Structure formats: structure tokens, C-alpha cells
């Protein structure tokens, strides 16, 4: 658990999530408590199906819990409506996924611009910000390329730049190296950690990779929907 003296950026209390799959009810989360302080890097390990990605999704406001609450910078997001959640995802959170999840019809630059363009009253000029971030991840030469024209590592770097676009408080990364070879994975992680250091954001990442987990301030393990 994080020390009480630090400012808590992300807190989840008694989180539960149940799915109906056919005739059976799947209990993906069964009362998870977690608190992550500002600037902290937390790695979540666990077997497939243990509930890691579900937890990450709920922490990021992508899904609603069946029970419990989630607070980001002290604000309860579980009671928010869809529009308010979209605002939180846009301004407070950056996501990095295993399969990059870039929009195939947009160029690297346009993909990174997207969150800035969706934000209302944002602090950045979308084009300038996107160019800066793509330069930060080493893709200044690939601005006009579409995802299909980029390698896996490059796509993940675009995804990292996109996650940083609105300078979020929290970055949530779901197995960011899971679809990359070891060398590329390491390089991507370096970029992710460097970017986090630059912004001072809180980073929660789900991984199978012990080496990646070792670089975190704290490692948590999930099993059958519970943090153990």
C-alpha cells in the first residue's frame, strides 16, 4: 500500500465486476482495494483471466464496476455519466494497449492529434503538440505514415505519444510489450518510462514480463479477481 503521507492519485475501493457469460456469472473482480500515489509506477502481474485488464479498464473509466468506487485525484468517477467519463478519459488518463489500437485511416500525426482535438478548452495546439510528442518517441520522420505502414514498435510508440497528448495525470498501459519482440519491447518500455518521467504522470501497467515489472516502484499480483 502507498504511504498515507503521499497524495493519492488513483484509488479503488471494494471494486467488484461480474459478467454474465451464457448461463454462468463470471466474477472478474471480487473486492479489489488499491491506492496509487502521484508519480508512482505500479506493475500488476497475474495469470491470464485473473482480472488485470478488467481492473485497468475500470480504473480508466472505460467500464463501470458492479460495485465499489474509483477516485481519480479525489474525484469519484463511478457516479459519472458517459459524457463526464469521456472528459476524464480525455484529460486525466492516457491509455496504451497491447494491440496499439490506432485508427487505421488516420496518419501517425492525426492519431496523436485526436485526443487534443476532442478536448474542450484544451491547453495545446493539436498539430504542434503531436509533432513534439512524436519527436519525443523518435518518430519525427514518420508523421504522415498510416498505422499499416509502421512496424509494431513504431505503432506502439505512436500509441504512447497519443497517451501523452493531453498531459494526463495517469497512464494506464495494458501489456504494452505483449505484442512486440524483446528488443523492441525494451525500447518501447524505455520510451514509456522516459515519457512518464518527463510528465511526472502516475503509471499503472499490466504485464506478464518480470523484467518490466522490476522497473516499477511497486508490484501487485492478481489472482482470481483479487490482489494477493
Amino acid at each position, binding site marked *: 500500500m502507498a504511504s498515507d503521507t503521499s497524495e493519492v492519485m488513483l484509488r479503488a475501493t471494494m471494486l467488484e465486476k461480474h459478467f454474465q457469460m451464457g448461463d454462468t456469472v463470471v466474477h472478474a473482480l471480487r473486492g479489489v482495494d488499491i491506492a496509487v500515489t502521484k508519480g508512482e509506477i505500479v506493475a500488476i502481474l497475474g495469470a491470464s483471466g485473473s482480472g488485470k*485488464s*478488467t481492473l485497468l*479498464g*475500470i480504473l*480508466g473509466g*472505460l*467500464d*463501470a464496476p458492479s460495485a465499489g468506487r474509483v477516485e481519480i485525484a479525489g474525484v469519484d468517477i463511478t457516479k459519472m455519466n*458517459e*459524457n463526464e467519463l*469521456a*472528459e476524464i*478519459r*480525455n*484529460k486525466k488518463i492516457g*491509455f496504451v*494497449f497491447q*494491440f496499439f*489500437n*490506432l*485508427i*487505421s*485511416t*488516420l496518419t501517425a500525426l*492525426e492519431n496523436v*492529434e*485526436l*485526443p487534443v*482535438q*476532442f*478536448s474542450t478548452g484544451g491547453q495545446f495546439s493539436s498539430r504542434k503538440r503531436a509533432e513534439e510528442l512524436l519527436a519525443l518517441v523518435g518518430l519525427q520522420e514518420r508523421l504522415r505514415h498510416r498505422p499499416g505502414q509502421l512496424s509494431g514498435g513504431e505503432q506502439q510508440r505512436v500509441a504512447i505519444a*497519443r497517451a501523452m*497528448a*493531453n498531459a494526463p495525470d495517469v497512464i494506464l498501459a495494458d501489456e504494452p510489450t505483449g505484442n512486440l519482440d524483446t528488443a523492441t519491447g525494451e525500447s518501447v518500455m524505455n520510451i514509456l518510462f522516459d515519457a512518464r518521467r518527463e510528465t511526472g504522470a502516475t503509471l499503472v501497467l499490466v504485464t506478464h514480463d518480470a523484467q518490466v515489472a522490476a522497473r516499477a516502484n511497486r508490484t501487485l499480483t492478481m489472482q482470481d479477481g483479487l490482489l494477493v
Partner: protein
Amino acid sequence: MFAIAAGVAAIVGLQSLALSVEDTVTNDIQTTHQADIVVSVEDRRGGSQTTAGTGVGESPAFASPVFSEEERSAFQELAANDGWVDSTYVYVANPERPSFIAAAGGAGTGGQFFLQPYLIEPGKYPLYGEIRAVEPKGAPLGELLTSPGEIALSRSIANRVGVGIGDSVTLENSRAFLVKGIVSNEAAGSPLFAPIFVPPLPWFAYVALDDPIARETFNLDEGDANVLFIKTRTPADAAALAGVERSGLPAGESIRGISSTFDVETAEEALPEIEDATDILGKFLLIAGLVSLVIGGIGILNTMLVVVGRRTMEVGILKSLGLKGRQIATLFVIEAVLMGLVGSIAGVLLGILLSFALTGFGEQFLQSNIDWSLQTEPIINGLVVGVVVTVVFGFLPVLAAGRVRPNVVLQAQSSTLPRSGRVVSLVVVLALAAVIGVVASVFVGNWTIGMIGTYGAMAILALLSLALLLVVWLVGKLPTFGSITLKLSLRGLSRQRGRAASTLLALVVGLFAMSTIVILGDSMKQFVDETLESELGGNLLVILPDPDLEIRDQARDEIDRLGQAERVVETHEFENATLVAINGAALGRPGGDPGATRPPGLGSLQFASTMLAQSDASADDAPEMLEGRYLVPEDAGRAVVVVGSDPPWLQSPIFGRASVGNEPTIIGRALVGDDLTFLVNGQEVTLALVGKMASNHLHVGFSQGHFLVPMDAIPDSVPRSSIGFQVTVPEGESAAAAAQLNRNIPGVVTVEVDAIASLFKEILDRITVLPSVLSALALFTGAVIIANSVALATLERRREIALMKTVGAKANKVLTMLLIENGILGIIGGAIGVLLAILILVIFHQVQPDVPVSPNPLSILFVLAVALGVALGAALLSAWPASREKPLEVLRYE
């Protein structure tokens, strides 16, 4: 599946309607024909004849020929025949010119309107079926007209005149008739009064034939009638009585034996004509249904592409387990058949409801009641065609599915369908077109038309698709003005260009149909307006009851007395005028100089329909002249004439040639300055030709003649065929002026030109109602395709939508993106549909100049608004739920 259901519903609905129409008119042919035998008096004017009112010296111009007393006696004798069961006489008033009705006693709108009066024997008419009033509801016609001076009006004319039950009306300025009932507009519908496809006038009235006031109104003597309906025991009796060849009775003892001038038709004789007409209607509706199904087929093709594409992984797994491409294709074909079957069953159910709903429009179009019934033929057709089309259109994607490589299993997220190869695709498309051609040929009943039509339609669709692909590509290049939503919309469109183009195609077909109907309807209405304005040149048309110069003088005085006539044009018509000589040289006539034969093609120089018009229309608006000059006010009373460019032979150098030996010699060609001698109603009149007009038509009032002469150029001693006035009074004064003229000049009929225009428009509305419904149906199918396409697009783009939401896009933003995308398709589809319709109509206009093309900007805006509405409405159906999905649900399972 929705796309299949929509297409099948169209085919089942339309074919059921066609069969119901056919059944209605042919199963009960006597009701359709109103009798087993219908005998009517042909127009025998010009020879010895009997006309209504001949006994009292009334004018023959407004009366119709009637059965003579001898003929009626002969009918009575024939009625003793065992086969003659019943009969009833009808007098169809003034079939050659409309009658007029006006409200009386302060009721109604005050104007005079056209109508067709039927004088019937109320207890007996009609012999088959019955006419019941809509007001008072259900009252039989026989109970409405029981006393003299009673009338039953059609719904439409009652509304037009503004009268109801208990009000009074006059016919031809008669004594008042009391409105006792209102019947539906469909009551008069029958092949006798209205051949199928020519909707009858919905403005009609029934009065009793033995009503003295009616007889006085139409100058009828007791027993006068011009139509006889006969009910017989059997069709064979009808044939015998009618005098059909080899039917039993000697020709002299049959109806045809009574007079050769009768128009006699038995129900059996009328049947083939009616069947032909309904058959054409049936094919027309069937083709409309097939078009809908082809549009539906495009939807099926799209659906199968997505269905198979999304299951690439499944196909890969099956292949990695050892299934061959052929086996995979079989699996999908079975699935397509099942999909086609379920979709077709849904379509059949929908189609039955649709045919029921369409019956009302069909009734309005045909002005006749249609007995709706459940038909098995369209249901079977719908099922067969639905399944065949599904398999046919689903085959290409299935072919591609068979070529999926098993290694896709190893590559997560792969859902790209391999291409089936250009040559293979082309061969398959041609083969599939053959299958559709076979289906179409079976339906149309003609192999040549079916196959050529199908391949022709496929070729046109292919060309149109290519053009639309180009359009979609260009749309993708439009500037986005920094709007991310617009950018995503345009990218979305250009990502699936094929689908966007096929959706557009479906829309274009539907909107083309709608635009054509709307523009054609508009053009016709505008044409009517312009024609009436240019032909009549006024807002009141005054028709004298007789071409009597004394009444003419009285009318002149009354028009003067109005004090507000801005322009008055007086027209005199002379029917049967014949040009007999040019510069005194007689034109060749049959029986003349045996050596002088007229050149072939000219025939007789008698031109019986030619009319001479007398007018003071020599006003400012002189028409374009080919030669010479137009009439001027100073010509009044002078023996001069101008000639129109019609007939063309008058302008031709060979006019008036006669042969001397074998060499044709010009003996007469009308040149400006020549004296033309006419034989007008038995008197010779010589007029100097002063000008030749460039226009094809020389209209004065409703008369269309070849010659125009100034006022008073024809001596008063030459009898006129008719006399009328066109009067222009200030806007808003026409009703009062018409009422004043009607009141003060005995027997005169004054009609507001607006009433004529509204008559034409009402008829046009009726003609266009069914095509409009069909085009709406095509558009509906297009809407289904759009809904289908958007559903597919959103299905494919669930991940993209979830991603947009993940990075902060609100649901409305996503919805806006999808709506913009489809709104663009709607607007473009509408614009192309309208442009194509205009193009086709302009081309048609070149071939057939009588068909006007003058699109109304408001109507075009309407079509575009419909297109946009249809596209947005259809898009909203699937875009709304897609925009509301939780991102994690999609990201986790997609």
C-alpha cells in the same frame, strides 16, 4: 437479412397487388364491364342522326346522339328473348365536352366547375354490383334519387363546389338540384367510362333519367338515352344477342342488326383488352419489385462480405483443421440459403402487409375498387427469388472465404478477406447475371427481354458503380477545414469505397425514380398552367350555348357591363371548312380531271377538322412570322387570313401539285398575297393570305386551327360552329364576374380558367399516385440498404468507435461522425438521382417534344431533403446504439 426481407416484401407486395387488380377486373368481368352487353350510340352527327332534344329544336352542338324510338322498340322486342335477363338505359351527358356545375342558393364557392353527369335509372343501375353513398353512409343509389330534382355527387366534385347534403346545385345553369348523396370517386370507374390506365374524371354526378328537371337540363325527350346495359343469362346468350359472328342468332335479329352505327361490346369481347391492360400493369409492378430486389441484392452482397470478413478467423481455424476451400464455400452457401430463406419468409409477411396497404393507392390510381386477397403465386415467387438472389449475391464473398489461408489463426486481429481474383470474379459475375436473367425471363415471360434486360441492367449498374466509386474517391479528398469529425467521416467513406459506392447506388436508384416522377409531375402541371395561360389568355372562359349572333351580341353587352374586363377576345369556330381554290384555281378533287391525280401522301385536300377562327386577337403579342405579317387592328372586317405552320404540307412546295401525264406540276402553292377560297358550311369565302406564322399551333381558345382571320371577315350569313369569349378581369374578381355573366346571359357557361387548371392537376395527381408510391418503395429499399450499410460499417468500426471514446470522444461526437458520413451519401445520392432524372427527361424530351421538362427548384429541394432525411434516419438506427457502447466491452471482445 433485412435487405433480403425488404426486396422480397417489394416483390410480393407489388405482385399481389397486380394479381388482385387482375382478379378483380377479370373474375367478375360483368361488374367491371357493368353488363354482359353494353350498347352505345356512336357519334352520328354529320349524317342523318337522332340527337337529344331534336323534337324541340334545341341546338345540336351541345347534345349527344341518342337511341331512336325505333331502336328502342327493337331492343324491347329482343328483350323477349329468354337470354335477356335485365337491362337499363343510361344517358352519358355530353361525352364530347364537359358539363358544368355550380352551387346554388348561396351555398358553396360560387364558381362553375366541370363534371360528367350520368343520367341513370336509379333502381336498376348498375346491373352488376352496387353503388352505395359515402354520405349518408351505405345508402344505395336507388334510395337517394327518388324525386325530381335530386342529385348524387362524387366526393371530389362536392368538395370542389363546396356543397354537402341538403345544398342545391345547378347543372348547365339549370333549375336547382338538391344534393341527396355523395358517392366515392371510385364509383364511376369502369372500362366503359374509363379505360384502364386513363383515370376517369373524379368529378361526376348521378341524376335520374326520368327526372323532368334533368331531361329539361339536357334537352332530352322521354326515353332518350345513349347507352344500354344488358344483363344476359349466359355469355353465350350475350354473344347471340350482341350479334357476335357464328353465335347462333342470325345477324339481322341481333343488336348489331338493329343498327350498324351502334358500338356493341360483350363482356367476353372486352375481356382480352382488360386482361392485356392488367397484364401490362402486372409486369410493370413486377419489374418494379425486381428492381427493389436487385437493390436488396446489393445489400446482401455487402452483408455477406462483412459476415465472411468477420469470420476470417473461423474460416482459418476450420482450414487448419483440414477443411478444404470447397467445403468452406459449401458451408457459407448453406448459410446464405438459410439466411435467404429466413429473410424471404420475413419479406413475404411484410409483403402481404405491403400489398394490403398498397391496395388503397391502386384504387386511387384505377379509380376502381380492388378486392384484396391473399395470393399464393407471389408468395412462392418471393421465396424462390429471395433465396436465389441471396445465394447469387452471396456467392462472391463465399468464393473469397474459400481462399482464406489457415495462417490467419496465428495472426490475431486479422480479418482481411482475400480477393477472389479478377478473372474468377468476372466469370462468376457473368454466370450469376445469367441466373438472375433466367429468373427475370421466367417472370417477364420473354427470354430475350429477360436476358438482354438483365445483362443490360447489370452493365448500366456496373458503369454507374464505377462512376460512383470515382465520386466516393473524390469525396474522400474534400477539405476538412480542421474538423476532426469531418475528417473521420470522409476517411470512413473512403476506407470502404466499394460499400459506400453500392450504398450510393441503391440511393441513386430510389431517388432517380422519385425525382423522375416529381419532375415529370411538376413539368406537366407547369405545362398545363402555361398552356392555359397562353391559349386562353384570360381568366374567364365564356361559352355560348348556341353559336347564335344574337346571343353573342347580348354577351358582348354583358361583358361591357362588367366594366372591369381588361381584355376581351371573341372567338368563332367554323368546323368542316375546306380550302378549295388558290387564286381562283380549283384544287384537285376526286372525280376531277382524270389525268390529274394528286401526288401520294397528300390524299384528299379536304381537311375536315380545319377550323377558321375569327378574332380580334390582333394585339400586341404578335407571334413570330415566317413570311408576311400578323393581323393588325385595321384588319377588322377585311377579308384577310394568316396561316399557321401546321399543317406542314401547306408550306410545302408540292402542295397542290397535280400530275399532267406522269410529270407533276405545281398548280397551287399558298404564297403571301394569294387569294385562298374556302368552302365554309356550304358557302364560299375568299380571303387574302397576308402572313405565315412560325408556330406549329394556332390556338384561339380551345380551338386548334390552321387559319386565323380578323373579326367580321366572315359574313354573318355563314353559320358558326361555336362562339366564345376569353375575358381577363382583375385578380380576385373572376368568381363574381363569372357568376354575373352566368346569371345574366341565358344558357351561357362561364368558367374560371383556374378550374380548368385544377381539373388537369387533379387528373395528373391521380395518374402519378401509383408511380409515386413505387418510387417511394424503391427509396424505402434504398433506405434499408443504407441502414444495412451503416450497421455493417459500425460493426466493422466498433473498435475504432471504442478507441475514439477511449481517448475522450463523447457519444454525440461519434454519432455526429456517422451521421455526417451518411448525410454526405444522402445528399450526393439525391443530387445524382435528380441530375440523372433531368438528363433522362431532357433526352426523352428531344425524342418526344410533347413531354415537357421544367424542374421546379422547390421540388428538387424536396427530393434532396428526402434523400438527406432517409440517409440520416437510416443511419441513426444503427449509429445511435453504436455511439452508446462501452469502450471496454468492444476492446475486450473485438
